[in-house]
């Protein structure tokens, strides 16, 4: 007999802390769906372990849509020196991680985890972590799961506009992004006069992020006097063939670099909803692409970065809140084993090491790209 996890939607334990998130509908449905998807795995089914743990970062290295800057004349770079501007503005960062736990005969099992980290004044850092939530995604339920995420990622879904669920191979990335967007929107709705830091860019119209969803996020933040700043860790931004992150090294940090052109792309459905900067926030740090809501004034944007470098610790040029959010959401190898144990103990799923066909065929030469 399999020991089933008891789930009662009315139990407050299963609701997100009300002070943290207003709309608990998704988490409740989310948990139900997680449990339901796992329960559908037949008793004593095998879970084939991947040869290595694959994190969302590894399979999807920052899906950056690199803009091309265009203008009427030869493009020039504008350097904006920054001066730390201490204030009581809270800095809030959000990150979500996912990991493939293994494959079943009918699909894959993923786990998702989200983390928000915030800091206000000298009260130190606080975090709230959601998960891990394991999901068994099959051909049968992928539409339902994807639909749920889509439904709650924006407040008012347009009837008949739901994009078809991606195939199982790509669903990990899609689900991660959708959960991240939902959480970002919730934070934007609840926090006032804050700096909201995202991992990624403010590019919309991609498979993961609709223009409406991103617009909604920025509007919600703006209506609460908050500003969204999105950091892209690895960028291919170039101007006249030169890497922008290299060009900024000529200027004394902390500073921002901005071109006087406007960003364009070959894809008509892509929209850049942020002004794009290159930011070098401390002397020994790295330079990052920084997208800031383009509906606010340039002065507001610059001030927001000045508040950020004063209110948050910046190590290696990267905000500490965002670094902690990433650290707290990321899965370790031990956690993958722990989740596999949870599945085995509570749902009777057998963990099986699938033979490595490459190894069997090619012996020591049968290494995957990551092993070479």
């Amino acid at each position, binding site marked *: 007999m399999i020991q089933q996890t008891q789930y009662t939607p009315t139990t407050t334990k299963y609701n997100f802390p009300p002070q943290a998130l207003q709309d608990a509908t998704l988490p409740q449905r989310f948990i139900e769906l997680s449990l339901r998807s796992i329960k559908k795995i037949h008793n004593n089914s095998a879970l084939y372990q991947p040869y290595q743990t694959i994190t969302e970062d590894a399979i999807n290295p920052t899906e950056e849509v690199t803009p091309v800057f265009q203008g009427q004349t030869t493009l020039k770079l504008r350097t904006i020196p920054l001066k730390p501007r201490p204030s009581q503005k809270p800095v809030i960062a959000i990150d979500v991680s996912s990991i493939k736990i293994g494959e079943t005969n009918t699909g894959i099992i993923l786990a998702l985890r989200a983390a928000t980290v915030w800091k206000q004044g*000298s009260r130190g850092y*606080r975090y709230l972590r959601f*998960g*891990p939530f394991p999901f068994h995604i099959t051909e049968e339920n992928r539409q339902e799961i994807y639909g749920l995420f889509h439904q709650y990622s924006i407040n008012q879904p347009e009837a008949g506009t739901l994009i078809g669920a991606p195939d199982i191979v790509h669903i990990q990335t899609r689900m991660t992004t959708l959960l991240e967007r939902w959480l970002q929107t919730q934070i934007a709705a609840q926090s006032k006069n804050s700096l909201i830091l995202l991992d990624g860019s403010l590019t919309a119209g991609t498979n993961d992020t609709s223009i409406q969803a991103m617009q909604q996020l920025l509007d919600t933040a703006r209506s609460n006097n908050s500003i969204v700043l999105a950091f892209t860790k690895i960028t291919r931004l170039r101007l006249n063939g030169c890497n922008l992150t290299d060009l900024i090294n000529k200027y004394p940090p902390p500073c921002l670099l901005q071109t006087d052109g406007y960003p364009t792309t070959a894809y008509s459905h892509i929209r850049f909803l942020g002004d794009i900067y290159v930011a070098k926030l401390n002397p020994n740090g790295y330079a990052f692409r920084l997208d800031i809501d383009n509906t606010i004034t340039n002065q507001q944007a610059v001030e927001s970065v000045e508040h950020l470098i004063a209110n948050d610790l910046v190590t290696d040029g990267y905000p500490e809140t965002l670094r902690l959010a990433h650290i707290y959401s990321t899965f370790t190898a*031990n956690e993958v*084993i722990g989740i596999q144990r949870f599945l085995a103990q509570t749902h009777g799923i057998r963990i099986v090491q699938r033979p490595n066909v490459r190894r069997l065929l090619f012996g020591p030469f049968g290494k995957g790209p990551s092993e070479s």
Partner: protein
Amino acid sequence: MRLYRKEGNTVHILSFPNENVEKGDYLIIEDSKKNRALIVQVIDVQFANVPGLIEELLRDSTSSDSDNVDLALNGQDFDPLEVASHITYIQDSSILICKIRANIENSRISTGGTWLPSRSQSTIKRLPTASLLNLINISQALPISLGETKDSTPLNIDATALDGRLNIVTGKKETGKSHISKLLVLGLVQHGAPVVVLDLNGEYAHLGLGGDGKQNEYGGKVHVLIPGANFKVSLTQMKLRVMLNILLHALNLPGTSAREFRRIWQLLDERSTLTLQELGETIRNWRCNQHVRDALFSRYYALVNSGFFTDNASEALGLEDCFQLIRSSGGALVVNLKDTSLVDRQIVVEYILGKLVDLLTQHVVKAAFLFAEEAHLYLRETYWDDIVTRMRHFGVFTTFVTNQPDTIRENIYRQADNIFLFNFTNEHDLETVSRAARVDAETVKSIAFDLPPQHCLLLGNAVRDFPLVIKVRSLNVQTMGQTRLFFVQKTSSKANSI
């Protein structure tokens, strides 16, 4: 528990937090398909090398108490499925380092284990001490109760396990060495064995008295001999060989002078005038070199001043007379050396050991169990080898008790049949003891290092070479082993005034 690795006679077992296995515990690895089992003993418990653990610890350390309030990180986890408990379960898993002690095949136990149990099919269970004792079938014909094991199983060893054996009781100060020695002495006495105790600190003097100061069941069997007081010998009770050993080894008489002494002794013996007084007179009148005479005189006065020798026949109590006291139903002759000087102590011990061999050679005494505390303080170099080889064959079965294991020679450890090992924290001490042939060095070093006070690791014949950790039982006798303290009275009176 799951079998993880086997290297030589070392087995690594993966254990989970709720299994609560500790050092010294016995486990049984059963391979039902092969109808065989291995008995292994846990000698160390280590954390399992779980992948990703360092990341988790680093992550947790960022959220723990930072001195800088500005950088402190606190928060909460919303984990409705309670997956975290499974993750911490993995984090706390451990690897048990075990030594193979025996192999069971068709219900028959044998030492060693050359076969490899199945990793996937084997079941691993804790082996309760009671079951282990049943399996190894320790004889209980003449039981000596020593205490109980961790799972509260009473542990008795058989007195025959000490018969004809060489034993060592060792451990650092105040761990309970003398206590277990007393248990062994009284256990042997209870079964009618003759025991001689060389009691350096006067700790055994009151073994015949209970905790309340009244005579206990051993009262009539424990005889305390105080050299120079109730234990004196006459020269006629001694043999020339024993006296020469005293002069040569305890009093460092040169060989030339010893030759003259031999002639004097033989002359007095022929005349049947072997007394201290006659000896002194004869040395005075003996025709010899003045230096030889001076040497003989100085030794003569050392003998006289020891107070151990007497010309008064009614005062003299030879060792053979003492053995008469314990001959019929056993007993202990406790030679209290507490107030005896170093030279006098050596004189007494030379006499006792020489006389004991004589009595055993003449079959006056069948055998004797000798307990020697800190023997290096009174036993001459040449006796060590003598005790473990020649004297053992005569019937002297020695138990050395020491807190300085390096004072006992390596060959003694190699030939020791039983070792009662208490805690040592010094690696050099553990290294010395680990040379014992009855057990592997890793077991000694790992288990003894963590033994709490009053806990003893039993090694050797008494436990059929299955090392066992026991909590030594208390003893209702006046042990007298406590160190005299200066501050006790002051602190107790202060406490009373409060």
